[in-house]
């Protein structure tokens, strides 16, 4: 079990049942569980969608698209069955929030899927959980079984005449599967390779049927919105960024952990007050604000409101909420290399700019860090990244390119300090062995 932390500035909405024994369905019911779905059953589907739209809830998986808007794209009439798919393939480095939701409040995810299904007129939902999270899959499968046993799922739920089935589905290790169309491919039993869009999943998704795909945190937020109201939820955050966010604080921090804070919470305060500051008397060097795909911010750039618009204004992205903090002992070339090693490993290989680009970037960064870099490589790294941006089949290419461009732009001197013959200034020369590359 992952350990829980707390801070007085936290506003617990999605995490309010953490540590409360809510994996037990009776306890979940005591804690207002399944009230929201019953309320939703008494509402018109459009009213549910409008409530979610007005709440300002934006996708917590990374893209930050309006959840209510996404639901409204599903056609009302469809010859094919409609589906709701919970994306629990949490794999973005720096991010571990959905893990806590599945561990402590699985019924909230089920309830969120149910409300989404009622809103769009779907009768089948799937909760996809990454393969590494086996213990969470067991928790989720039990929660689903318990919900069926109570008559909350299956035929005629809550005596409403509405039939709804929800199933668990397990992954087997692939970051790319977190991309919504790749997730559908994986659920259909194939390699998790993205589909060309349009058509978008809302119109042509799983098995060709209209499909809503939302991140687990997004769906777990929905029951609270239906019970508490759009106005209340929107008021917790900032304009156009409703609610709270589970922030995963990691890296060189005294108090790392997953904290639920209002949207728009100041990043500097998050690092120094919530996260307890930098250990061992060291100075802050940089922060990855929203998972490994988001451009890094320097220590001088952290006076930022942590909502989608605030971080975008600072030249980065809120992404999946993974805040990774680096102290001044870290080498940015090495950090760039480790980041690229991940994207090279996880590129599905479907399109050339991503497959070749990530491979080339990893090789160059590796040579660079090993003391074999030449001046023109620095511009080439930037130029190649820039040319991957927006030119790949899915956002994985962008996810590799965007942080790399920021590393070069903001820490160019460190790249220059690694030019041919110069040992890494952050490591002893004897430790300059190349980093291992995956077989």
């Amino acid at each position: 079990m992952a350990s829980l932390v707390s801070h007085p500035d936290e506003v617990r909405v999605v995490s309010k049942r953490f540590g409360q024994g809510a994996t037990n369905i009776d306890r979940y019911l005591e804690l207002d569980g399944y009230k929201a779905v019953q309320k939703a059953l008494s509402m018109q589907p459009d009213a549910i969608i409008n409530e979610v739209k007005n709440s300002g809830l934006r996708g917590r998986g990374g893209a930050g698209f309006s959840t209510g808007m996404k639901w409204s794209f599903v056609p009302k009439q469809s010859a094919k069955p409609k589906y709701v798919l919970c994306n629990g393939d949490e794999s973005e480095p720096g991010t571990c929030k959905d893990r806590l939701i599945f561990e402590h409040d699985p019924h909230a995810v089920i309830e969120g899927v149910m409300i989404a299904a009622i809103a769009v007129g779907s009768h089948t939902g799937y909760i996809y959980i990454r393969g590494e999270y086996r213990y969470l899959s067991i928790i989720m499968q039990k929660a689903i079984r318990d919900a069926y046993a109570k008559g909350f799922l299956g035929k005629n739920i809550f005596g409403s005449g509405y039939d709804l089935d929800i199933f668990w589905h397990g992954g087997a290790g692939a970051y790319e599967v977190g991309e919504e169309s790749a997730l559908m491919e994986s659920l259909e039993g194939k390699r998790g390779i993205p589909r060309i869009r349009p058509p978008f999943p809302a119109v042509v998704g799983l098995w060709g049927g209209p499909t809503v795909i939302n991140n687990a945190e997004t769906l777990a937020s929905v029951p609270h919105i239906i019970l508490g109201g759009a106005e209340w939820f929107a008021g917790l955050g900032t304009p156009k960024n409703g609610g709270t966010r589970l922030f995963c604080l990691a890296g060189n921090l005294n108090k790392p952990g997953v904290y639920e804070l209002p949207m728009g919470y100041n990043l500097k305060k998050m690092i120094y007050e919530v996260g307890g500051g930098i250990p061992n008397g060291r100075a802050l060097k940089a922060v990855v604000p929203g998972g490994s795909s988001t451009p890094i911010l320097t220590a001088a750039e952290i006076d930022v409101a942590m909502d989608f618009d605030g971080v975008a204004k600072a030249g980065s992205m809120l992404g999946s909420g993974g805040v990774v903090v680096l102290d001044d002992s870290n080498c940015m070339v090495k950090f760039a290399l480790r980041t690229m090693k991940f994207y090279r490993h996880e590129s599905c290989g479907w399109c050339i700019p991503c497959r070749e680009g990530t491979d080339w970037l990893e090789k160059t960064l590796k040579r660079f860090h090993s003391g074999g870099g030449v001046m023109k490589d620095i511009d080439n790294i930037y130029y190649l990244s820039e040319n991957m941006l927006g030119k790949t089949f899915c956002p994985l290419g962008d996810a590799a390119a965007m942080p790399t461009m920021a590393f070069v732009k903001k820490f160019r001197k460190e790249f220059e300090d690694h030019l041919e013959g110069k040992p890494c200034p952050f490591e002893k020369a004897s430790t300059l062995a190349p980093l291992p590359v995956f077989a």
Partner: protein
Amino acid sequence: MKFSQEFESRFTEMLGHYPTKRSVLVPTLLYAQDEVGSLTDEVILELAQRLDLTELEVRNVISYYSLLSTKPRGKYNVQVCTNIACMLVGGEQLLDHCKKKLGVQHKGTTADGMFTVEEVECIGACSWAPAIQVNYDFHENLTIDRLDQVLDEYKKKGKQ
């Protein structure tokens, strides 16, 4: 080939969850691997037949997912995360220590078949880094000493 009753129950139940048989493939491969130890030719043929797929289609899926393997692994698959959050707080040192202690390289298995060591990408333990996963068990906030204890506990357990 014969799987356990538990596998068969899961397989049959999951078939009822989807409009196409093929959808059970990914989770089923993982269950089969857990039971057999690896995705052998026999397992691949069996699942291909059950799901009306070619062996090539099944192999094509296996090669994509990092948790799936056609090669046998040790009784305990020690997966050490060295991705950014773990790297910043000692993930690489854990990997080095693990390899030295067990005398194997990345994806190597000890002579007694007890441990396989594997460097892996993010396992979702960033706020509790550095972390490893042994089979499906997470071990987090590790130090070298704690890692030694964890490995020793598995070694003891494996000999019982």
